[in-house]
C-alpha cells in the first residue's frame, strides 16, 4: 500500500486529503505514479496534466520525476509553497 496525501489547491480540487492505494506494478517512480493517477481522468488528469506545476514529496523529502516510489512510502502532492 502507498499512502497518498494532497495539500492546498490540490486537496480541494481533487476532493480528498489522503488515500491508501495499491501500487500498480507499472509504477516504479514519481513519473510513473503521476501517469497512473492521470488515468483516473476528470480533475485528476486536469490537475496533474504535464503543464501544471505539481510538487511531489516521498517520505517527507522533496522528490523528482525519477525518485523511486515503493510499497509503504508516503507520497504527497501539492502546489509550489507560499509560506513565510
Amino acid at each position, binding site marked *: 500500500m502507498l499512502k497518498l496525501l494532497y495539500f*492546498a489547491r490540490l486537496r480541494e480540487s481533487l476532493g480528498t486529503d489522503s488515500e491508501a492505494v495499491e501500487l500498480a506494478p507499472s509504477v516504479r517512480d514519481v513519473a510513473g505514479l503521476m501517469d497512473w493517477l492521470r488515468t483516473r481522468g476528470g480533475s485528476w488528469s486536469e490537475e496533474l496534466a504535464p503543464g501544471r506545476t505539481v510538487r511531489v514529496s516521498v517520505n*517527507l*523529502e522533496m522528490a523528482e520525476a525519477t525518485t523511486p516510489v515503493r510499497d509503504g512510502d508516503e507520497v*504527497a502532492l501539492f502546489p*509550489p*509553497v*507560499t*509560506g513565510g
Partner: protein
Amino acid sequence: MPVRVQAEDFDAGAEILALRRGNPKIGALASFIGLVRDVNNGEPVTGMTLEHYPGMTEKALENIVSEAQSRWDVLDALVIHRVGLLLPTDQIVLVVVSSAHRGDAFAACEFIMDYLKTRAPFWKKEQTAQGTRWVEARETDDRSAERWEKMSPASAAHRPR
C-alpha cells in the same frame, strides 16, 4: 528544537531575549518577522489561512536551519511559523539568528527566510471581497533563493565579520 510550527501567536521580544540571554559569545543577533498585510497584488485582503504538511514542514525547516549553520558561523537559530487563520497585522513567521559577528547573523537570517519561502511546505489562502483564493508562488522568491546557490563558498565568506 530550533523550529516550531504553531497556531498560537508568539512573543518576538521574549524569544529574542531567550536566545541571547547569558551567552557572552554573541556579538550580533539578526531577526525577521513576517506579517499579514491588508493588501496583496493591489487587492484588499481581509485575512488568510495557512496550511502545512505536519511532519514534513518541521523537517524542511530543520534542514534549512542546518544548511544555514553549515554555511555561516551561527551560534543559535530559531524559526517559528504560524498556521491557521491569520488577520492583517498578525505575525506569520519569526526567524532569529545569533552569531559572534553581524555579517554571519544577517546572511544566515536572510538565507533562512529565502529558503523557507521556496522550500518549506506552507500554503496561503487569502480572503478577499471576491472570496478566497490560493496564493500563487512568486518568481521573485525563486530568484531570491537562487542567489544563495550561485554564491560560491568564497563569496559567501566575504561578508562583514
